[in-house]
């Protein structure tokens, strides 16, 4: 790390007053907001200096007036940018789990504690920037901070830089915030996984499936958590408002599939196993199967639906957690 980078890092740590993550809600008080000119602001200052020299040289009194007016505008720009950011309150909001390698979307609730509108606030978590166009007075808006997830487990929101150059683009006001917030990262599903373990584990009255599991076997009322692909949309129009049917397929009912850590080849390492199990869990869920998960030291009883899938994926994500 170069000395300059170290200095910058030290400044940033100081910027959040050494407490990361911070307790929420975070209020960007006046002491936490910094201002410095942007490149455009420096060009503006340089222009003003040249103009002032011209005005002095040609004794243009109105030239002095113009230059001083623009100086005042610069000061107003400092205050404007400062005011656009100061007294903004930050609260963690939603953050949905993602698979490793995807962008984790940390939702931050930006609450405008003042009556005036705020515009064009950029949020930068270090990996890409998102922009909030407008926050009405006394209102809040959710802004995403996208962070690329690299490995499974809990991903904490790193320090976020909030900045704005509004209204004139001449001055940048910024503040650092590190709200306590984390995102669950599932293992990345293996792209080349062995097929679902047919017949592995305990079979409970598994029947012959001559046509594979795609065979249509009738309809039943829709339950929350049924895979969307299995909803019988064609019949939806005939049913009363909001009611749906789910298509059932042969081989689906009464069959339990175990996704078993031990069933995988012994040569695979932990992450590869987790990756394959993730793929299996997703496939089993898509196929509408009833499945359970066995990990060393943990067993999830068979079930189905989104909630069950999430439990399985969470177990996989947090496997080996201290």
């Amino acid at each position: 790390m170069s000395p300059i980078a170290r200095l910058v890092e030290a400044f940033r740590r100081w910027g959040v007053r050494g407490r990361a993550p911070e307790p929420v809600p975070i209020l960007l008080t006046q002491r936490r907001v910094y201002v410095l000119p942007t490149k455009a602001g420096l060009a503006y200052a340089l222009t003003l200096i040249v103009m002032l020299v011209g005005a002095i040289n040609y004794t243009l009194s109105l030239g002095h007036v113009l230059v001083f007016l623009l100086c005042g505008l610069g000061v107003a720009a400092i205050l404007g940018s400062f005011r656009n950011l100061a007294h903004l309150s930050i609260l963690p909001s939603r953050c949905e789990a993602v698979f490793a390698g995807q962008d984790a979307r940390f939702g931050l609730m930006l609450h405008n504690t003042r009556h005036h509108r705020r515009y064009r606030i950029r949020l930068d978590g270090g990996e890409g920037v998102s922009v909030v166009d407008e926050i009405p007075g006394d209102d809040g808006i959710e802004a995403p901070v996208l962070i690329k997830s690299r490995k499974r487990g809990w991903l904490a929101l790193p320090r976020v830089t909030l900045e704005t150059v509004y209204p004139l683009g001449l001055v940048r006001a910024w503040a650092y915030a590190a709200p306590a917030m984390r995102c669950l990262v599932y293992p990345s599903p293996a792209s080349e996984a062995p097929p679902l373990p047919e017949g592995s584990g305990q079979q409970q009255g598994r029947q012959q499936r001559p046509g594979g599991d795609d065979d249509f076997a009738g309809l039943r009322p829709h339950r929350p958590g049924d895979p969307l692909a299995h909803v019988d949309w064609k019949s939806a129009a005939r049913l009363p408002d909001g009611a749906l049917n789910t298509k059932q397929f042969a081989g689906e009912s009464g069959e339990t599939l175990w996704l078993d850590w031990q069933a995988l080849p012994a040569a695979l390492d932990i992450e590869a196993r987790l990756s394959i199990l993730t793929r299996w869990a997703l496939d089993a869920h898509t196929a509408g199967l009833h499945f359970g998960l066995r990990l060393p030291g943990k067993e999830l009883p068979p079930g189905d639906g989104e909630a069950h899938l999430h439990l399985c994926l969470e177990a996989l994500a947090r496997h080996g957690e201290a």
Partner: protein
Amino acid sequence: MAKPEAAPPVTQRQTVWLAATALGAFLPLAPWLPGWLNALCLTGIVWRGWLLWRRIPLPPGWLLNLLAVAGIAGIGLHFRNLFGKDPGVAMLALFLALKLFETRTLRDATGVVLLCFFLILSQFFYTQSIATAALMLVSVTLATSTLIALQREDVAPRAALRLGGSLLLQALPFMLLLFLLFPRVSGPLWGLPADAGRGLSGLSDNMSPGSISNLSLSEAIAFRARFDGKLPNKGELYWRGPVLNNFDGRTWRMGPPRKNAADGVADKGDAVQYEITLEPHNQPWLLALDYPQRWPADALLTSTWQVVAQKVVRSRQRYTLRSVPSARIGLEEPAYAKREALQLPSTGNPRSRELAQALRARSPNDLALANAFLGRIREQNFVYTLTPPLLGVDTVDEFLFDTRRGFCEHYAAAFVFVMRAAGVPARVVTGYQGGELNPVDGYLTVRQSDAHAWAEIWLAGEGWRRVDPTAAIAPARVENNLAAAVPRGDPIALLARPELDWLRSARYRWEAVSNAWNQWVLGYDNQRQMALLQRLGLESPDWRTLGALMAGLGGTLMLALAAWTLNQRQRIDPLLRQWRRFESKLVRAGFVLHPWEGPRDLAARAAQALPRQSEEIAAICDLYAAMRYGRVIDDQPLDELTRRIAAFAR
């Protein structure tokens, strides 16, 4: 709504903003740019806006380059120069128009706005009137709003203009502070280009028939004077300009300037002190009332009693003088000066020379000779007119014996010629005579139409005596003004006519405003600044004091403005205020608030967390919920809520 950020290219609306700003910076400058360049720039700006509005692709790069090269070549041909003030401004306008076609990113766009600021500044080379200042405010508001639109491209035009205006209003106090306190440097930091003072009118260093009558048609102000005491009589208001000694048969010219041996005239008790605000005339001399006693330190008094500055007057100047109207000058004039004042071409104007000899023979002394000449003018029907006939080779002869119609320069020149031919040292003095007192602000306004020429003859034992031949033929010219002296129907300036009184009084008022502007805004210089600060109680302000004062006041101003902008706190709903108080009490008790929780859920959770106060919590939350979401007619429950929350123990 939040969205991932995109690269910032300049959008359609933003380019329209830029074109409007460019127009706002360019149009006030147009009267001073060559016509073809105006057409080119205007076409460029409008064309750019049009292409954009109709979403037509940009013209190819080679066409723009061609236009740029052609434009620069045109500027070079037009001004015969590429480096200088005028070609520089022209080039700036051209670049602005063409740069609009090259504006792709936000950075380019900011550059265009900065270029516009330069262009707005450059119009002050040509005019600094009140109207110009107003136009500048319009242009700057437009530019500021454009900067806003560059940040928020979806902003409504009115909102952008309002915000731009509000930012400029915030900038005003800083402008005032800097304007008053920023240390003023007088004079240029380096040499001005040669064309810095083109197109200024005024007296010149030579006089031929017709040169002053041309000037008399101009109502432009030559200078303004403010007297410390009583105004001298109108007949004493001879403002001395160039003294013309050399005659070549047609044109009178100024001789080489020499420093005056005497150090001004002695005080005779009737000295007048006055301050002159001289309009730039691109010549070195300063106008002074006859005869100067004190003059500015950076000027000098010549042997012909002219006050001459060291540098050409290219900007409005203010200086203080003291004169003694009744003084005698040149009592002991050296021989060479008298010789100079007798110089005539060896040939020409034979009839005038004859007349001189005849007058010489008849007159007992020089003064009688001069009076004899003036008497002759008075008696033979000479006419004082602004439109004299053109004169041929022997100008003096033709005027004295044939046409007999002339303006002051004809009379002065003929008088001096005859005096010299008769052996009396004489010289032509040009300058201004009279002036008009503005009753609104008490300044005496002297216009180009007050330009005048008179004569001085040297008499033994008396020195130089002023003789105004015009007074002999048209005494009203000296006692009143030009309009009273010339025949009706002469083409004098409209406002000099006596019948337009109401118009004149309106003009007095306007000129008083404009003079105040000149004195306090345009003429705010080092001296004015020091005088102001001394009046404010600073003994000897130097730049360090100014710097400290500026920093201190600027900082205070900024803090005040910051406090004002940051604490525009809305009037919060009293019910909500009480609820917030309750919430903060809970937080201080170690309870964690969830933003999504309503009062009932909060009550349930808080009652668990703080079991000892569960009843009170439930009561407060119920009351709040009832008031917030139920129907409440009077404020009585609010009082109860306030009381309960105040009593709520942490």
